[in-house]
């Protein structure tokens, strides 16, 4: 977890740099610092997302992040790559139980409707199915991570 001072430093550094957007993820923590050039004046937004173990979030920022996620989703109409978005809020699990093999890994070839992962909410485990067939090129979630509605979980490459 970053301290307040570290966070201030981070914002300052980004502000003074030519970087527009800075995203940092480590140990279940996500920090996103972004410059938004609205009406010529630059301002920063900082967002912190946490895994449920040490939950703490900036609610206003979370709402902003969700909007962004939705935007990202709608812009991912790239033919080559398909993003699988979370249809609900829930905790991500890559396997049906701790001893089982993960449903998919990077490199796994998947068919349409194949189970990719489960999202747990209110003690119910919801299977997330692939909408397309292809190859998993990226997994954007970690076991136990709380996934927001609309958050991308997988990137699947169209192989044909």
């Amino acid at each position, binding site marked *: 977890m970053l301290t307040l001072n570290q966070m201030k430093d981070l914002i300052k550094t980004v502000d003074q740099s030519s970087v527009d957007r800075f995203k940092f993820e480590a140990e279940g923590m996500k920090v996103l610092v972004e410059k938004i050039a609205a009406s010529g004046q630059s301002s920063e937004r900082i967002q912190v997302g946490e895994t449920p173990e040490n939950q703490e979030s900036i609610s206003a920022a979370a709402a902003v992040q969700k909007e962004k996620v939705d935007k990202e989703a709608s812009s991912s109409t790239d033919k080559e790559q398909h993003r699988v978005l979370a249809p609900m809020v829930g905790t991500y699990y890559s396997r049906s*139980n701790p001893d089982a093999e993960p449903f998919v890994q990077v490199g796994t070839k998947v068919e349409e409707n194949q*189970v990719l992962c489960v999202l*747990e*909410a*209110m*003690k*119910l*485990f*919801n*299977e997330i*199915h692939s909408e397309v067939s292809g190859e998993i090129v990226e997994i954007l979630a970690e076991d136990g991570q709380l996934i927001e509605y609309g958050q991308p979980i997988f990137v699947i490459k169209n192989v044909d």
Partner: protein
Amino acid sequence: MSIKVERPGLLTSLQDLGRYGFQKYGVIVSGAMDAVSLRIANLLVGNQEGEAALEITLVGPSLTVKEDLFIAITGGDLSPQIDGEPVPLWRPVYVRKGSILSFGACRTGSRAYVAVSGGFAVEEVMNSKSTYLRGGIGGFKGRALKAGDIIQCNKMPKKSEDLFIKLKNKGGFHPFAAADWYVNPASVVNIKNKTEIRVIRGGEFDHFTPASQKQFFEQEFKITPNSDRMGYRIEGRALKAEESFELISEAVSHGTIQVPKDGNPIILLADRQTTGGYPKIAQVITADLPLIAQLKPGEKTRFKEITLEEAEQLYLEQEQKMQQLKMGLQLKKHKE
């Protein structure tokens, strides 16, 4: 709607959460051995959690479904299949008219529960649909199921219809269709430590020799084949009481561990007698009773001592998780 029993399996009977209020007259409680699995099975198909369901033991039955049915199978994995195809557990399942639900190898646990949406149409006897096998009352004609039995089912509740229709459409001409979501029993019951049953000290714990007291928590006990719904006889090195003494019989409960003269404990379970006179060395905590119910003869277990306060806490946590699950299912049904 009805189900026809082609083969009854080892011991298949109707059980709900038990017949309470009559122990003072000597009428035992009965009910599901693994109450958590029974409750979840019912909740999955939109029933009240205490509705009667089929309790299936080690070797499952073969049942013909006479009309389209909405069911859930929970508890131990006895390899359920419909028309030969494996059926997932812990999910709502649509079963097509004419299909055969059967069971295969007992992979995990020893008892499975099959709930049908709406419940089975049997009369309550003394406020319960549970079968009291030795007394011959309740359930289906007061006995375990036999080949040729036809059990009627009630109409499914309104709130289950949407999901049922959705699954039916998904199933098409297939013999069944399961939902793409499920309950993980590990999030309600401590399955990870299923061979370490937590107990609190019993009323006569201090009557046992210090060596036996120690031994009770250290050694492994084996479930003997002489175990049933009334109680599990378990054996290890024999436990000794300080001096031979007789108790006046007093009330016993689900999970009471008695030690008869031979020194091998008995864990009293769903069909326990109402009173007992053997010294009680320990009491299994309520939250771990489902674990005991799923142990099979030949398996081993240990006992771990916790305090009464911890036991209460664990029980409250388990019930809280059940509440959460109930709420989750309600939200799910609204969304479908």
